[in-house]
């Protein structure tokens, strides 16, 4: 599934990386605990989270996560957006909650990360 399709399904605003919407996302994980992301992630996946601090971008970069969706209409600060641009990690913002956003993507055919 492309990031463009994900943005459409989640009716999301693209706040960073609008030129990179053709990237393919193979799976996704939903978490607010960054250690859980580092433990359970699969490379090239999408992270769905409610946390918007810059260290979320760093976690994504270290884990090899391709893109991040911020839920509940949370808008990241300028420092987070700037870091995401530098690290070329597109950011989407959706009004849906984590459960609904995950459910919509799963229903559209985007599987979860394979654990362990």
């Amino acid at each position: 599934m492309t990031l463009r399709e994900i943005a459409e399904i989640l009716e999301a605003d693209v706040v960073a990386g609008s030129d990179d919407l053709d990237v393919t996302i193979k799976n996704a994980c939903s978490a607010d605990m960054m250690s859980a992301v580092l433990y359970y992630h699969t490379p090239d996946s999408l992270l769905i989270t409610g946390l918007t601090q810059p260290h979320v971008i760093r976690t994504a970069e270290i884990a090899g996560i391709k893109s991040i969706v911020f839920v509940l209409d949370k808008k990241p600060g300028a420092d987070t957006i700037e870091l995401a641009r530098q690290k070329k990690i597109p950011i989407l913002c959706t009004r849906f909650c984590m459960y609904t956003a995950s459910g919509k993507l799963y229903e559209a055919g985007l599987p979860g990360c394979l654990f362990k």
Partner: protein
Amino acid sequence: MDETTEGSFQIIGGNFGNAGEASMQLKSKLTELGVNEAIIRRAAIATFEAEMNVIIYAAAGRLHYYINRDKITIKIDDMGPGIENIELAMQEGYSTAPDWVREMGWGAGMGLPNMKKNSDEFRIDSVVGEGTTIEIVINLS
């Protein structure tokens, strides 16, 4: 890669703004050296978790890495409260992190298990009231 490449970082407790700097620099260094991507990811994750533990729990710490032909060695010493029961701390989900740390997305009790999971050799030594020393070895072949 016949010679040893090394580097070190000072980590200040509570400084979330720079969290991940050491691991990102190590990641760039390993990329420069042409190390396999999966190994780089393991090293970056283990280093990031180690950094976060110093930021969350300690006053300060030092991270030092050595890379040679065979392995990556990462050593972290901190001036922190120490760990009373290492066996318990190594259990997935066990954490002593305060609520404000959890609200930032850390303190899930996965840090030490995650470091071990990504290491080929993992050693931890801690003295309550003095600090904790961790050594992570990741083989390159």
